[in-house]
């Protein structure tokens, strides 16, 4: 029985050593995995500096709408989520049915067309694909 316990314990040591080996190999693999994932190109370049200008035009509190040419929240949720992230504590609703709407476009030339299609006018157009839209008077 004692010998059996001893064998068990020794094998347990071996298992742990194997586990450490596995871990080292896996960590090495993770370097390449994470590296590969991070290099996926994105449709919209999202950086906080794009929203610096428009933030000064927006109210400190309230809810504004959102309009994009990249498919909105269904097709490109990351762009919408990041817009909300940068503009908090302002609440950015996922639809354009608000008096003030923020446009987050991949192609700046399409802003006016899409705004008009949604009954909106361009109040302020920044040259980086971001614009402040307002609802037309009814």
């Amino acid at each position, binding site marked *: 029985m004692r010998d059996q316990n001893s*064998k068990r314990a*020794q*094998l*347990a040591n071996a*298992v742990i050593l194997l586990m450490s080996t596995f871990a080292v190999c*896996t960590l090495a693999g*993770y370097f390449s995995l994470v590296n590969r994932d991070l290099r996926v190109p994105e449709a919209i370049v999202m950086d906080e500096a794009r929203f610096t200008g428009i933030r000064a035009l927006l109210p400190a509190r309230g809810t504004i709408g959102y309009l994009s040419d990249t498919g909105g*929240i269904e097709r490109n949720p990351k762009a919408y989520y990041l817009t909300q992230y940068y503009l*908090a504590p302002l609440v950015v609703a996922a639809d354009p049915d608000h008096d003030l709407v923020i446009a987050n476009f991949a192609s700046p030339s399409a802003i006016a067309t899409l705004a008009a299609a949604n009954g909106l006018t361009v109040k302020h157009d920044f040259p980086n694909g971001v614009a402040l839209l307002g609802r037309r008077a009814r």
Partner: protein
Amino acid sequence: MKLLLIGLLPAAIGFLLTRALGGGTRRICRHDVFKLIIGTGIGVGLCSECYFAGLVASIPGPLPELLLAVAVVIAVCLNRNKTRCRFCERPSRAPEDRTLTRYLAAAFAFLLLLDLAIFIWVSERNPRGGWDAWAIWNLRAHFLYRAGGSAWRDAFTEVLAWSHPDYPLLLPAFVARGWRLLGRESSMVPVALACFFTFGCAGLMASGVTILRGARQGFLAGLALAATPFLYVQGAMQCADVPVAFFILATLVSLALADRFNSRGFAAIAGMAAALAGWTKNEGLLWFGAILLARILMARGRSLQPFLAGALPVLAPVIFFKACVATASDIFGSAGRAGMIARVLDPNRYLLIAKEAFRHIRDFGPLPVSAFAILAVYLAIAGLQRDKRDRDILRTSTLALSLSAVGYCLIYLLRPLDLAWLLDTSADRLLLQIWPGIVFAVFLASRSLTVPDVLPDFPFLACRDDSQLEHPLDGHLQTVFCRADWQGCPLDPAQPSLLGSSCFATCGLVAARPLCGAPSKIWRSIGKLIGTTASGDLPPRRRRLRGPLAGDAAENRGGAESAHRDSLHPDTAISVAAWDRSRLLYQARQQPASFPSRRLHGARLPSQRICVPVAERPGHRLA
């Protein structure tokens, strides 16, 4: 000053609170590492709640947490007469092979360094964290930090339902608190917070299991966590599942210590940790319910009062948040209730959950072999220990972790989202929440390496210079050695294997048998590789000895001769390491004079080595 307030104040609050509740010496002792880690986690949680209370009550600045700090200092002052560390008072189970322990410590440190490199590398590329971090936790921190007056409540609106406004606020509130103290938004605050919880898991595991089961088992358990790359990548992504895992582990370790040392203070700390898991994420609330139910069922409500006393003050802000601030959850809200019956009755959902659960368990780690499988194999090989003192916590933790896993499955079943997508994106992280708890339970339940945990009820050992033993040792004593005239023994008591006496020759051989008898080829190779075996200090001649205790007379005579050469006079005293704790305490009570001092010629004896003069023992008979 700002950095002190951001990082050190929570650590100081938690550490002092842990010492006030769990006990501690006037000076720093080695167990304070454990108390610092668990205390910092609790301090972070309490400071987060203080910040939330300040927002609700419109109290500017860090006033609530300064009040908390004053309360903790008062608690420490009230406990100033109870300045003792319970962990230091009790002898640990067995002296361990230092060489092997050093190798394990080195492997643990090496893996942690690799983990740290990964963590820094991922954090540099994702300073705002992963998807969940910026879309949920840091977004909410922006609301709490940037909004003035009551505008922070705007974060909890149905318009932002995609950001889970029903999730509790430990991480956002602590990050916002850090930014507020710093005076600006900095990604260093969430990164540092994530770093603490990520590496705190490994530290808490290693230090906690070391207290309960010895350093070697502690390093092994820490190694198992350090060998989980997923933990460190998710930690660097500032994922909230890592803090939940930390608090689940803290709950189990604290409860184990409360059971082992009959400490109501650690039961209260366990309650705090469980409640803080609930302040971190909704799954933490599930954990709180699971551990409470498991404790009632499996441990007959043992230490339940201090557990609840610790938990309820921490739970109060959670209850307020859920009742007055948060939106309805997506499961039990109106959208979740619609079609719930159909989802429950759909057999395909059960099949998909089972299939994906199996796949994620198999791929968890991710290691070439499933981490769960490695743990299972380890447990099967090492075997279960039979220590009644840990029975309650083992049953409790097994049931609580199982209930949590069942709860996760129910969440998947009920949640009104695409189930395949949900499982694919979250099952790993849910497994990660309970993984440290599983590792802890396994290493608490398994036998320690090389030394059987439970010493047999063998009679007292008595030896003379002819090396004849009065009673068989049954081979379970790890290191028994006799010394001549222990008052004047010139040898280093910290190195028993170097003691040369006739009795040691015999006893050392007996002790060596379970350690190195009949090693397998694999074990021999490992021994050669690392330059030692479990009993590597023994000379080769003794290492070869096999057979029954009194069997090899030639070896005994050889030992006796070497003892004479060492000019020692045996049978004056026997130093017994790893003696059964209750027996030692019994002896100490019966014969306090037998335990005059733990000091020997200036060399401090490790606390687990007790010198017991043979002549004063009741019932002994020298051969």
